[in-house]
């Protein structure tokens, strides 16, 4: 015991030094706004740069696949244009449509940071408010939906992935137009659940799920395919499992969708809520 006290007395100045340095650094980080910001940001500066570099390298390995995807998308878009051309009578072509208003604007972006293994997954994309990306803008890719923007920085934005416990997307079954909520229970990054579809609705395994007009996603954008649908005895709603068309763990090129009508729609909704 005496030895212990002697030891402490002898090295008291070392312990004191460590204690006081700790207190100083606590002071520095908690009271000086500047250092606190550095403390919080330097990790993101370093990791942001790393993410950027890593995704630049990874991009090369996916080029083949991305090319195929883009070619497919091109083909389907071309088909749509051709269909529209063939169906529109020539005389209508020159009509000036004053009611028509563009609703969605798409910005291409690239995912530089992503996770699918957490309960609340977030992504980072390399476009920000300087590129026209705003908070609550939705993010899609050609095959499916990705999430929505929760915070838009100048040149980067964070996106809440649909693989997040807080994510809730209004979706509908393409065939019957029945609406439900797409949520993630966190079991598998390819399987999501649809809630609030009543048991009288007509749901079949193999039905395609698309975005509904209730969301700010482009209407009718594909989401996934229903792989499992059942009603538990005594329940009023279906338990539906949906397999995504897209693989969110490999998401790379995405489109950020700005809904130009969002403010108008939201203000009307809040008006209704106030009444």
């Amino acid at each position, binding site marked *: 015991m005496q030895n212990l006290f002697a030891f402490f007395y002898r090295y008291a100045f070392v312990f004191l*030094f460590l204690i*006081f*340095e700790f207190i*100083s650094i606590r002071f520095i980080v908690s009271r*000086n706004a500047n*250092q606190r910001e*550095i403390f919080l940001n330097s990790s993101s500066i370093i990791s942001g740069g790393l993410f950027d570099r890593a995704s630049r390298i990874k991009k090369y390995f996916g080029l083949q696949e991305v090319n195929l995807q883009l070619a497919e998308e091109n083909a389907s878009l071309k088909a749509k244009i051709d269909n529209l051309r063939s169906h529109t009578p020539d005389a209508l072509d020159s009509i000036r449509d004053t009611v028509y208003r563009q609703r969605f604007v798409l910005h291409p972006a690239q995912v530089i940071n992503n996770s699918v293994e957490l309960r609340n997954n977030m992504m980072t994309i390399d476009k920000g408010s300087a590129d026209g990306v705003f908070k609550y803008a939705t993010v899609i890719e050609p095959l499916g939906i990705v999430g929505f923007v929760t915070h838009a920085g100048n040149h980067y934005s964070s996106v809440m992935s649909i693989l997040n416990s807080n994510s809730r997307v209004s979706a509908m079954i393409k065939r019957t137009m029945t609406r439900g909520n797409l949520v993630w229970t966190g079991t598998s990054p390819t399987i999501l659940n649809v809630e609030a579809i009543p048991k009288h609705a007509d749901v079949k395994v193999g039905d395609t799920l698309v975005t509904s007009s209730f969301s700010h996603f482009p209407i009718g954008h594909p989401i996934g395919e229903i792989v499992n649908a059942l009603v538990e005895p005594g329940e009023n709603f279906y338990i539906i499992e949906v397999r995504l068309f897209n693989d969110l763990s490999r998401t790379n090129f995405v489109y950020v969708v700005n809904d130009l009508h969002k403010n108008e729609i939201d203000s009307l909704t809040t008006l209704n809520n106030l009444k």
Partner: protein
Amino acid sequence: MNSIWFRNGLRLFFLFCFQVLVLKQVHLNWGSFNFISIMIIPLWIMLVPVQSPKWLLVVGGFFIGLGVDWFYDSPGVHASAATFIAFIRPFILKYIEPRGGYNRVPIPSKFHLGLNWFVTYASVMLFAYLFFYFSMEVFTPSLIGTILVKTIFSFIMSILLVLLYMFIFDPK
């Protein structure tokens, strides 16, 4: 012994006032070149009696640094640097111990140990202080270039002032 601590207290008062009332107002910058801040307060830690207890020095360093921080609006930055040099002082003194040791040497000053010895001692202590201080102030290890430039320029000005002090007052 009492008179030595009395003189140390007086010196602390003078250096502290000089640091926060005069040197804080000195802005040596030309355009965007603002790398110089002159520090005299480490001199007090350098000049306390050799035999003073190590733990007391660490405690004293911390509170004096905190006092300077109070005037510099930077809680913790000076305190951490002052604690640091108070901690390493016994090791430095041991490393550059003159022949004959520190017997009959009340304080490690120019008067007792000669100019050469004192310049070595003051340089090491001051550089350690400034380097630690600017590391804490900048707080980003990747900006080591900025830290070094600030340290070096501030060191040149501060060591000149420290030597000036030694030549004027020559503390015994």
